[in-house]
C-alpha cells in the first residue's frame, strides 16, 4: 500500500514546455520609486523559474503583480492566454495560480487539516442548503476534498501534526503547511516566495526535495523567489536576475553563475557561495 504520488491526487501540468505565463514589459512604481522597471519573462509548464536579486530588487513586487495585489502602471501579464490585469486576486487564485508568502499567511488558530481544507475552498461546488444538511453533493465533495488533502498531508509528511493548531507548530513546519495549502488549490502555476528563509539545513533540504518532487510529479510551472543560492542553482531550470527592479540577466543556472553583471550585482566576489538563509550581500 504505497503512498500516492501527486499526479494521482492533483491535476498535472499537461504537455511539457507550453507557455503558461507571459509577463511583458511590466512597470510598477510607488510614489515615483520604481519597484519593477520593464520586466518581461515567460514561464512554461514543467519549468522551475527562479527569480533572484538583492533585497528590494522587486522580486516580491512581481509576485504581487501576478497575483493581482498590485496593478502595474504599464505592461501586460497573461496566464494561459488570459489577461490578468485588473482581475481580482481571488479570481486569479481561482484561475489556477497559488502562492506562498515570505511571512507565513495561515490561520494560526485552526488545525493543519482545516488550513489545507481551506485551500480547497474554491473547489467546493455546492449550495448553502446542501452544506447545512451535509447530504448528497456536499458530503461527496467534502470527502473528495478530504482525500486530496490527505494525499498532500502524506506528501509533506504532516501526519503527526494533522490535528495540531498551526500556531503551535515550529516555523519550519508552518512553512511546510503553507506549501500544502498552496498545493491544495490544485494550481497550474505555483509561486513560492522565499520558501526556506529562516530554515535550518535539514528543513531546507526537505523543502528542496518537496519542490523537486512537485515539479517532477505534477509538471506544473513553478516560480521561486529565493536567496538560498545553492538551492536555486540546484533546482532551477531558468534563473532570472533583477537589480533595482530592472532585469539584468536570464539563463540557465550555470550561465547566470558566470554572468559578470550578476556577479557584480548580487553574488559578490565569491559567486555561487552566497551565505545560506537569506543573508544576501
Amino acid at each position, binding site marked *: 500500500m*504505497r*503512498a500516492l504520488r501527486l499526479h494521482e491526487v492533483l491535476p498535472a501540468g499537461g504537455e511539457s514546455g507550453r507557455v503558461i505565463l507571459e509577463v511583458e514589459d511590466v512597470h510598477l512604481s510607488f510614489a515615483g520609486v520604481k519597484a519593477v522597471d520593464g520586466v518581461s519573462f515567460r514561464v512554461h509548464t514543467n519549468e522551475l523559474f527562479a527569480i533572484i536579486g538583492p533585497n528590494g530588487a522587486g522580486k516580491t513586487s512581481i509576485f504581487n503583480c501576478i497575483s493581482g495585489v498590485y496593478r502595474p502602471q504599464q505592461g501586460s501579464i497573461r496566464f494561459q492566454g488570459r489577461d490578468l490585469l485588473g482581475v481580482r486576486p481571488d479570481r486569479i487564485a481561482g484561475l489556477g495560480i497559488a502562492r506562498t508568502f515570505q511571512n507565513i499567511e495561515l490561520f494560526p488558530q485552526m488545525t493543519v487539516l482545516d488550513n489545507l481544507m481551506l485551500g480547497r475552498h474554491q473547489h467546493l461546488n455546492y449550495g448553502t442548503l446542501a452544506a447545512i444538511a451535509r447530504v448528497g453533493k456536499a458530503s461527496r465533495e467534502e470527502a473528495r476534498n478530504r482525500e486530496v488533502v*490527505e494525499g498532500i*498531508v502524506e506528501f509533506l509528511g504532516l*501526519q*503527526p501534526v494533522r490535528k495540531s493548531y498551526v500556531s503551535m507548530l515550529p516555523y519550519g513546519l508552518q512553512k511546510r503547511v503553507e506549501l500544502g495549502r498552496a498545493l491544495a488549490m490544485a494550481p497550474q502555476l505555483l509561486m513560492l516566495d522565499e520558501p526556506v528563509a529562516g530554515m535550518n539545513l535539514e528543513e531546507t533540504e526537505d523543502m528542496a526535495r518537496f519542490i523537486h*518532487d512537485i515539479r517532477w510529479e505534477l509538471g506544473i510551472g513553478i516560480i521561486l523567489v529565493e536567496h538560498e543560492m545553492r538551492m536555486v542553482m540546484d533546482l532551477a531550470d531558468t534563473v532570472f536576475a533583477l537589480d533595482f527592479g530592472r532585469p539584468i540577466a536570464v539563463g540557465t543556472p550555470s550561465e547566470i553563475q558566470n554572468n559578470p553583471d550578476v556577479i557584480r550585482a548580487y553574488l559578490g566576489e565569491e559567486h555561487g557561495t552566497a551565505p545560506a538563509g537569506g543573508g544576501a550581500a
Partner: protein
Amino acid sequence: MTILADAPAAVTPAVTAASRLRQVARERPGEAALRVKNRGVWREISWAEYWDQVEAFGHALLAMGVRPRDRIAIHSENRPEWLVTDVGTIAVRAVCMGLYPTNPTAEVRYLLQNSGSRLLVVEDQEQADKVLDIPAGELPALERIVYIEQRGVDRYTDPRLVSWDDFIAEGGAHRRAHPGAVEERMAAATPDDLAYLIYTSGTTGPPKGSMLTVGNCDFAGSMLASADGLINPPPGPRDFVLSYLPLCHVYEKAIAVWLPLWTGAVVNFGESLETLMTDIREIQPTVFQGVPRIWERIHAGIQVKLASASRLKKLNAGIWLLVARWLGKTLARTGGRHTPLSGVAYWFGNLFLYRALKERVGLRRCRFGVSAAAPIAPEILQYFMSLGVPIHEAYGMTENAAIATTNRPGRVRLGTVGEPYPQIEVRIDEVTGEILTRHPGSFVGYWEMPEATARTLDEEGWLHTGDVGEWVDGTHIRIVDRIKDIIITSGGKNISPSEIENSLKTSPFVKEAIVIGDRRKYLAALIGIEFEVVSEWAQRHKLAHTTYRDLSEKPEVVKLIQRVVDETNAKFASVEQIKKFTLIPKELDHETGELTATQKVKRSEIEKRFGDLIEAMYR
C-alpha cells in the same frame, strides 16, 4: 552445523510462516489480517489478499531463479510489504534478512556483503540512496533492488532497480505460466531450512548474523500460541497487535510475525513512528509489546497529562493514584492477583480514573503487555499493574528465538524476567552465573562465524546467553547484567550498573543513564535528560532555554537531576551510590554511533566520546 540445503523432501512438509499463512487464509479468507493507516483512514488487507501477495512475491523470486538458502534482504519501516517480503521469502525456502531503517550506508554495505543478499527491498528514496551509494562492484551478489515507494526513485536509472508493483506483476506472470510452483517449493520445506539471518546489533564488534531455521520458528510460534506459553488465555483472531518495533529484531518478529501467523491475530501498522502514541490510541491493542523506553514514554505521557489537568480533575486523580499506589503494592505481593479488598478498590478506581487514563494512552483493551529487550524498572511495572494494565517482563534473545522465560498472569514477580517456558531447559552456570538455555528454538549458529558459534552454542546444545542471572525462590530468574558490563570497583566490589541505571531512568526527567566505575574508586554517572519533559518542567518554572545543550547546562536542571540521583542513591548500599554525575550535552543517536540500532547505549563508544567528562568526575 547441520543445515541440509538439499535435504530430500520430507513426507509431511515442515510448518513454516508461509504454510501457516496459507492455512489461516483458507480458514478465514475474508477476515482482516493486516490493518494499515493510510492517508488518515484505516484500511484492511484480508488473509486471502495477504496470501495472494505472498504467493506472488514468491513467484517473482522463482522467476529470478532464487534457490533455497539464497538471501533476500529488506530495508524498510514496518508496513505490510515487510511481512509480504518476509513470508514470501520463506515460501520459496530462501532466507530473509532485515536491516534497521536507521542503518547508515556503511552498515548497509556490511550487512549486504556479509549475507551475500541477491535481492534487496527498499522502502523509499532514503533507503535506496544508501544502497546506491555503494559501488555496484562491492556488492557482487546483489542483482535487484525492489523499491516500494516510487517517489524520487523512479527517476533513477540503475538497472538493478524495479518497483514493487512491477516486481509483484512479474510474480503474477510467473504464476500464470507456472501455477503451483511456489506451493511445490513449500512442499519440500524441512525444519532445517534456514528462515532468517537476524543480525545482532553488536555493542562490541561487527554485527553477527544469527541463523534461525524453519524449525526454530515453528517452535517459537507454537510456544507463543499455546495456552501455557506467553499469553493466557492464548491469542486468537480477536487479538489486535500493533507492529512498530523494528521487524528485523527477534522480539518484533515473535510478536508481529510469528504470533499472528500461528494464532490468527490481526496486525496493525500505524502511520509512522512519530504518530505512535496516536496510533496506539486509535488501535487500542489487546496485546502490546513494549521495550522499557516505550513503557516509560507512556508513563511520562500520563504524568504530563495529569500535570496539565484542571484542579478538580487533579484532586480526583490525586485520590485514585493514592489508591493505585496501594493497589500496586498489593498486586506486587500477590503476583498480580487481586484480593477481595483490592478488587473492590480497583473497580472504583477504574470507574473514576484508570479507565479514562488507559483510554487516553490506548491501553484500555490491553489484556497482555510485554516488556522485553532490556531491563525495566519495577516501579513502572507496578504502576501499570495498579491501573489494570498487566505488563509481563519476559526474556529471550535472537539466539534462542526469543524463547526463555516470562512472567505469567497471576504469578508475576517484579524485578524478575519470570519463569522458564514449559518444556524447555534453563539453568544457571554455578561458576560464572551465566544463564544457559536449551530447547528446539536454539539457533544453529552465526552466519559464517564458526568460532563465535562454538563460543555460544556448546556440544551439549546449551546456549550461552552472556547474561548473568540468579534464581529467585527457585522459580523466577533475575537478570543481574551482561557478563561484560559488570563493574568491579577498585575496592573489588562487583556492581551491576544496569540496576542503578534503571532506577535513575524511572524518573520521567531522565532518558539515558550510564554508570561508570570499573576499576575506579567510586561510581559516577553520565545522564541524558528527557528533553520534552524537562523542557516542560522548565517552562512551568519560567526558565528560558533553547537547545538540548542549553537546557542541560542550566544549574536549575542540574539541581533537578541531583534530586533524582539522591532518590536512587537512597535505594542502594554506599558503594553502589553515585558520587558524581554529569549531564550529557547532546542527545544520543544511532547515526552518530552512540546507540545501537535497538537504542541500546554503546558503553565503550560513550566512554570514548565523553572521556573528558568522565575523567573530570574523578579529578
